[in-house]
């Protein structure tokens, strides 16, 4: 009996993956899948020349190694071809049975590694011996994909071309109504990163491309009126849901989850969810009767947390990825941006004149988040309606003293009043999304979402 028990346990351990065992890398997974798709070699035709091309040169050699290993394990005799001008001619000259040409790259907009292989027969056709280039049988296409791990994302990330700008700004989507706050993050059942937007009427969840996924109409019946609507929204770990929101004037925050294509309240929060990143979530509170935040930055939802100072805040932002020196930023009504580390200690000099369309994002992957913000140019003169529209700009500032300007966009119609950051293009690095509120011809408002990214695939 004892022996039987041990045997059963051993069998179970062998069948289930060992707990804590590292997942195979994306390179290994795709190479194995591609090799599976090829199948074992036919008897007598095992010699295979392997030519790998990648959009990013640094990805080619690791892919070659992974595919070579996977094919070898399936019985192929693999000869890598590197730098051949005409791989087909080179393979034929080398007496190979097959040529496998593999193209490798990251799928735009998704954090996936994709391999596409073309298997070409190299032996001469008995019937077409006078045509040396003729193929004995038609070539085959095989392909494989796998989620890209950080190492693969690093290898697959395209370098910036000489003379290319630090980042690009492009319009992502237009939403009806006025967006008050944005958040970016991963939400269950949503592929890739999602964008959460709070509007005066409710909340919306969008795909990374700006397509609608789910929405909810807010019930603000019990909310105290505020002269200017405001909200905070964050995507993080909030228990039963990943999206947390609080509208100014509302008695409490809410936790939302996607259910049947709709956003539904699944919990309550006793403090306002200000932002969330890898360094954690921050909670705060609105100044009573206003749309401005008290200077409360608490890592816990603590209704009794005390303000750090009497100043009022417009926004608090979190850097999506931890580890860098800057984890959070708090923007006061005085347009002074305070940079904070994960322990909420100052992480550098404050930046002056920062706009309320704000995000912290490590766009270039150097480990330190940049400040992506609108460029405030308030004017006391009323804006004429339906004449010259107001224009704003997006600026990328290095988080150092004097805030060197890394990029300034051209004029953007509207007023940019909200922002958030996360990996929206799937290249493994942060991007930012900012919301510009524009007036519509019918006297209403709409919001244009702008993507700010340093992903070279986005550079025209």
């Amino acid at each position: 009996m004892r022996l039987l028990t041990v045997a059963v346990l051993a069998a179970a351990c062998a069948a289930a993956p060992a707990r804590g065992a590292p997942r195979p890398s994306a390179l290994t997974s795709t190479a194995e899948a591609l090799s599976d798709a090829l199948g074992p070699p036919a008897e007598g035709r095992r010699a295979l020349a392997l030519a790998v091309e990648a959009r990013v040169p640094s990805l080619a050699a690791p892919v070659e190694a992974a595919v070579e290993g996977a094919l070898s394990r399936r019985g192929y005799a693999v000869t890598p071809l590197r730098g051949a001008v005409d791989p087909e001619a080179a393979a034929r000259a080398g007496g190979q049975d097959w040529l496998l040409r593999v193209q490798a790259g990251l799928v735009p907009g998704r954090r996936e590694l994709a391999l596409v292989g073309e298997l070409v027969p190299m032996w001469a056709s008995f019937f077409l011996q006078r045509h040396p280039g003729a193929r004995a049988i038609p070539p085959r296409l095989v392909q494989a994909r796998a989620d890209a791990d950080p190492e693969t994302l690093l290898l697959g990330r395209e370098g910036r071309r000489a003379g290319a700008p630090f980042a690009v700004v492009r319009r992502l989507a237009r939403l009806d109504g006025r967006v008050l706050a944005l958040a970016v993050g991963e939400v269950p059942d949503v592929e890739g990163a999602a964008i959460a937007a709070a509007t005066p009427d409710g909340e919306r969840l969008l795909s990374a491309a700006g397509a609608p996924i789910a929405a909810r109409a807010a019930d603000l019946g019990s909310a105290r009126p505020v002269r200017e609507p405001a909200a905070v929204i964050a995507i993080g770990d909030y228990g039963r849901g990943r999206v947390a929101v609080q509208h100014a004037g509302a008695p409490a925050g809410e936790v939302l989850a996607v259910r049947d294509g709709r956003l539904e309240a699944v919990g309550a929060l006793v403090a306002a969810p200000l932002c969330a990143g890898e360094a954690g979530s921050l909670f705060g509170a609105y100044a009573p009767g206003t749309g401005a935040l008290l200077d409360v930055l608490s890592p816990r939802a603590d209704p009794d947390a005390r303000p750090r100072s009497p100043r009022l805040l417009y926004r608090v932002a979190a850097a999506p990825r931890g580890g860098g020196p800057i984890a959070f930023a708090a923007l006061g009504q005085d347009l002074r941006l305070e940079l904070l580390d994960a322990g909420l200690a100052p992480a550098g000099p404050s930046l002056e004149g920062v706009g309320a369309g704000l995000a912290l994002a490590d766009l270039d992957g150097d480990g330190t988040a940049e400040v992506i913000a609108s460029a405030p140019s308030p004017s006391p003169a009323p804006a004429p309606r339906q004449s010259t529209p107001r224009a704003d700009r997006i600026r990328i500032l290095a988080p150092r003293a004097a805030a060197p300007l890394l990029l300034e966009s051209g004029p953007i119609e509207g007023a940019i009043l909200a922002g958030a950051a996360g990996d929206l293009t799937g290249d493994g690095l942060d991007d930012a999304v900012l919301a510009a509120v524009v007036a519509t011809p019918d006297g209403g408002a709409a919001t244009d979402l702008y993507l700010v990214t340093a992903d070279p695939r986005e550079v025209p």
Partner: protein
Amino acid sequence: MTRPLAATLGLLLAVPAAADVPPAYGGTIRIALPSAPRVLDPARAVEPADLVAVRALHAPLLEIGADGRLAPGLLGEVPAPEVGGRLFRLRLAPGLRFSDGTPVTAADVGASLARLLVREPRSPHAWVALPILGADAVQEGRAASVAGLRVLSERELLVTLAFPLPEYPWALAALPAAVVSPRGAGAGPFALATQDGREARLAANAHHRRGRPFADALVLSGPDARGAARALRAGALDLVLRPEPAGGVAVGSTPPFLATVAATSPRLGAGAVAVRRVLAALDRAALGRLFARGPVVPLETILPPAVVPGAPPRTEGGPAGPLPPRLVLLIRAGAPDQRALAERLQVKLFDHHVRASVDEEPPARFAARLASGDYDVALVPVPILALAPAVAAGEVAYAVRGPAAARRAMAALAGAPPAEAPARLATLARALEVVPLVATGLRASATPALQGVAPRPDGGVDPGDLWLLGGGAR
């Protein structure tokens, strides 16, 4: 709503947060007005400074939206006319409170409308309540309560008019229709903290229906033009609302809604028509350009062109007697530009061999002399607070000739198609024996830190929407 008015609104109203930063809360906003506010009761305020203060302290029943249409205010919805425009159900929005925390009820609305009809002291804004059934009986002392006001519930008031007036909700959007609590508290964005002869200090009202205002406090004062310009330059003021520019950043001007009409007295007899013909022949554009300090438009009808598009002035027909050799020109003290206009009229009348003497009287004495006919020609300034022609015509008629004339004027223009309004107003001007002259407004000069300056369509600035960059951290 006329198209010119809609165009005016389009130019002057800004969407909230039109600046590239969201509004900031906090700070004290200091505003200089043509005079220090004195009368803070919406039933009695007529001076521009008083009207600005009243706008800060009180909330009208209806608002005027950015599209120039009526919008809910204290009333949760714009009342629809019933029974051919004689019946209106006024339903208050839920949860309203005065600045002292007491709830706003339908009884308060009824009482606020009824107090416009008290005989002593007479309200200059009784025109708001005059169309209500039984208003004349209260005004004449024949009844203690207004028959046309019936409280149906805590939040609903039934208003029955004496004659059809589909435009009556426009009267409810005028500032004098603001609701005042039995203890004198208002429901505006601010509450009175202190007041003396120099300034009024107002504190934010946390109970305002749109939420507390952005600023913590307002200080309203009335320095002279030079002092205001100096203080604005030194950063001791945030906004100057005066006829003349005061430096700083020019942030537009209020629509010219202070209409000045010249009324002739019955005591001139047959000579009145001749005097009106002389006044009607004046070049009003030049009169305004040369003798008014602020933004000015010539009046083609008794109402500003923003309310009714202008029409060529019509020469009054009929027989006219000889011009009187002498006459008394009555003007009100304290009203901007009235003295300059009167002196110009003196010159023009002298050209016709009429010697005119100018009598400048304080407001109460001016009103008494006007009511008793103790003048030959009176320059009557009327702040046009209602934007519907029928209601605004009643406002002018009430200011010049009293309640009966006001009712007749409102009835005459009730439901008038826009195309007919100029002709009916011309007829009304003859009936009232007045000559329209000019309408003037105020210029707004601000510091760069002041945001949210958007003159309202009725000529005021909503102080609750003003805010300071950085929340007033100086």
